[in-house]
């Protein structure tokens, strides 16, 4: 695997958890509650297992947290959820939900290509950079061509999604020894997050939040009434470009860290829930951030205690929030009327 700073050395992990990582979130994309894990669950040293054999306990989680094994992925999930929740509000308002899906798949292909080139040509390309390059490329094609195509813009989004997904699977097939990492990226089953990935997620997220905060009114005006904003000499094209570059940046970095599936879920479901429920953009941004962060953190805990894949758990929790908010919005509107 291309390096990027391991969270803990193999010896440290063995010391903490025995010969494997012990109980916790499943690393299998197809895991079910009854599915056997890749290795038997082992309690970390110094931690007590729960009374029910094989069921992860809080003390186990707390011990892993202290070691940083669970802390980093939880923080990563929370931070990614918050930032993608905020960004997702603008993505949903721009009616570009599937652009995020296509860009996240392109980022996944970038990571897969980085692994492939490392193994076959010994060319060291940091996976995050490869992910960013392909995500930006996909974004550039989408934003450039969408204005010029005679076909509906969705067709190009679908094409990029299809090409990136197929490409990642094909490339992954040729790097069998790393296929687990590829699956982790594509399906969001990564249990561990390296400090470097966490740092990148925090860094990219901070940049995203700063730009969104600084250009908040501009992004709104340019989206609500682009022609009116242009006549007022707002830099509408630059604002549009900035938004999609931020999407590409955030998606590529978070895809490498937590996988494509939860990234897409965080960028869509919390924003939809917030926009359905609230009549103010600022409040919708705050709620989307909160729901995204909760889905990221609680999703990991759910995966840990019930031994499900992490990404799917985080995505499911995002959808659960949406399913709660939709009828709630209807009730609130009914009472307001």
């Amino acid at each position, binding site marked *: 695997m291309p390096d990027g700073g391991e969270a803990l050395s193999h010896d440290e992990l063995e010391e903490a958890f025995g010969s494997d990582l012990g109980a916790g979130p499943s690393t299998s994309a197809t895991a079910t509650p009854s599915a056997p894990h890749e290795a038997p669950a082992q309690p970390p040293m110094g931690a007590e297992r729960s009374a029910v054999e094989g069921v992860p306990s809080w003390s186990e989680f707390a011990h892993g947290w202290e070691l940083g094994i669970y802390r980093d992925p939880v923080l990563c999930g929370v931070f990614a959820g918050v930032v993608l929740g905020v960004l997702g509000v603008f993505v949903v*308002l721009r*009616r570009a939900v599937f652009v995020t899906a296509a860009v996240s798949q392109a980022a996944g292909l970038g990571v897969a290509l980085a692994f492939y080139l490392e193994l076959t040509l010994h060319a060291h390309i940091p996976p995050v950079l490869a992910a960013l390059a392909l995500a930006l490329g996909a974004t550039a094609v989408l934003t450039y061509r969408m204005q010029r195509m005679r076909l509906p813009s969705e067709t190009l989004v679908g094409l990029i999604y299809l090409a990136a997904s197929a490409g990642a699977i094909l490339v992954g097939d040729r790097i069998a020894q790393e296929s687990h990492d590829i699956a982790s990226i594509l399906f969001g089953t990564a249990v561990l997050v390296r400090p470097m990935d966490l740092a990148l997620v925090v860094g990219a997220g901070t940049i995203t939040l700063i730009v969104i905060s*600084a*250009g*908040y*009114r*501009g992004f*709104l*005006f340019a*989206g*609500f*009434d*682009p*022609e*009116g*904003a*242009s*006549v*007022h*000499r*707002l*830099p509408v094209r630059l604002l549009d470009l900035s938004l999609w570059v931020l999407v590409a940046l955030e998606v590529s970095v978070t895809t490498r860290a937590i996988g494509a599936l939860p990234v897409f879920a965080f960028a869509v479901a919390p924003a939809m829930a917030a*926009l359905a429920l*609230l*009549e*103010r*953009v600022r409040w*919708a941004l705050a709620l989307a951030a909160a729901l995204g962060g909760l889905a990221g953190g609680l999703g990991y805990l759910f995966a840990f205690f019930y031994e499900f894949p992490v990404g799917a758990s985080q995505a499911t929790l995002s959808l659960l929030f949406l399913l709660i908010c939709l009828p709630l919005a209807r009730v609130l509107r009914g009472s307001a009327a």
Partner: protein
Amino acid sequence: MSRVGEPKLLLASRSVEVGYLGQAILPPVSVEIREGEFWAIIGRNGSGKTTWLKTMLGLLPPVRGRVEHGHAGLRLSYLPQRKAIDELYPLLARDVVRMGLDRGWSFVRPWLGREHPEVTSALEEMGVNDLADEPFRRLSEGQKQRVLFARLSVSRAELAVLDEPTSAMDQVAEHEAFTLLDGLRERRGLAIVIVSHYLGMVRRFADRALLLDRDTGTAVSGAPAEVFADDRFHARFSERPPALKTLEDGDA
């Protein structure tokens, strides 16, 4: 250039041909829009009115000719057709009006706040202050248009361009809208260019009209009465267009 005693020149179309991909859809148009004038752009559906407006505003490049601003830093404001405004955005009426304050890069200034006194006074001026904290997307068509007029008002524009702002209104609301715009013109010296299909209102409020028609290659400008008397106008409309007829009968 403005002559002594003439209202200040704001925007000039110098033999401007408009169209797409280098193909002109209308003959050359030469008009001058001056401070305090009320221009009505008239023509059938698909006659090129919006294309001409967008070219004048710099949203589309002219095929030939040139658009001139009367002075540097001319303050323009534009109210596009309603379909160009995205009502998915959960904005309060007050938020929409405040957009009128933003120009250039001013949106990065956090102190240009929502409670700006000009926003409140513009809402009051348009009679929608009580709707300030209502979601824009839940307002009636007439209320939305008043809020958007308040945005025009707060923008301190010298020239306001409106593309079919009354298309979703009944006759009473439409008359109120024209009256509000005319009031803005009188109080502020604002020049107004409006696309409208309501010829009765054009005759009553506008002091300049421009008839455009891409099918016959027509561009006629002048006082509304002159344009309505032009043979090319009658060729494209009925002998006496219903709206005009109603107004004349009512006036009589």
